[in-house]
């Protein structure tokens, strides 16, 4: 088996999954992202891996639109959480992404119990440069949901101007994924400079990068958050 083919395969699966989530966010329907038919065999392994990479956003329609997830969606999500825990010495984003999935599972499936809800360490975000902060927040944009309170959201909340600077930098670098993730965070933060023009900035990011489902997902999430659809 050629390893070189696996990563693009996974990237494609993640993009397909993200497309499903975007579609669900637009229509208000279920994502059907965690397709139950794909839970076994090789394709199942790939589908589970894609859910793990997209993280808590795989169930974003349920979180933002308050539409209860289907039992089989939850089952696949749970399986992804269990199948791919962070390895020893995993990067903070890997650990936090897994924590966010467990938190989502607890919220949407109260019967699920998988041990204590202890937050991972977020010290790596303190005193980091605004460029790195924005990059890391972009990777962890799945944590940018209304009502979420954790060390990462608090770190972001303390530095709205830095995140705004990072958003502008990402746009100027044409890093649409990072820009979209930062834009999603900015919709949640207080103290964002009015001069940023976030609304138009998000429009621009969508115009330039919206063909990428991962960008479209973040922009859509930002819009729904801004519109207060979750209330």
């Amino acid at each position, binding site marked *: 088996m050629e390893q070189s083919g696996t990563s693009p395969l996974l990237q494609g699966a993640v993009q397909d999954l993200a497309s499903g989530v975007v579609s669900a966010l637009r229509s208000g329907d279920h994502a059907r992202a965690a397709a139950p038919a794909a839970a076994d065999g090789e394709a199942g392994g790939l589908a589970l891996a894609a859910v793990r990479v997209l993280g808590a956003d795989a169930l974003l329609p349920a979180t933002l639109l308050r539409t209860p997830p289907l039992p089989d969606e939850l089952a696949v999500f749970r399986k992804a959480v269990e199948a791919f825990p962070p390895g020893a010495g995993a*990067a903070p984003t890997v650990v936090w992404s897994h924590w966010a999935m467990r938190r989502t599972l607890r919220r949407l499936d109260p019967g699920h119990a998988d041990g204590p809800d202890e937050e991972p360490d977020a010290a790596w975000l303190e005193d980091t440069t605004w460029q790195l902060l924005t990059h890391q927040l972009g990777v962890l944009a799945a944590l940018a949901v209304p009502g979420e309170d954790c060390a990462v959201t608090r770190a972001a909340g303390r530095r709205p101007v830095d995140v705004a600077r990072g958003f502008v930098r990402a746009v100027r670098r044409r890093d649409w994924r990072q820009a979209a993730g930062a834009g999603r965070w900015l919709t949640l933060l207080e103290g964002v400079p009015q001069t940023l023009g976030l609304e138009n900035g998000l*429009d621009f990011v969508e115009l330039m990068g919206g063909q990428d489902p991962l960008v479209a997902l973040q922009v859509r999430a930002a819009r729904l958050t801004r519109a207060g659809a979750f209330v």
Partner: protein
Amino acid sequence: MSPTEKFTEELTGIQSADIEAALDPAEADGIYRDSRECAALALFKGGFGLLLSPPTPRPKKG
């Protein structure tokens, strides 16, 4: 272990590494705007002014 199980195990092993890489990506290299996009920015509702701000002046050498 059947060949299919072995293949799946190999695939899953590789995916674990891929997953960690996907969740901890390096920052993408910056690609800066060309003049066409500058124009697009200028025309884009005229509301995203910060992007069009001139760069901070660099200190003169010497």
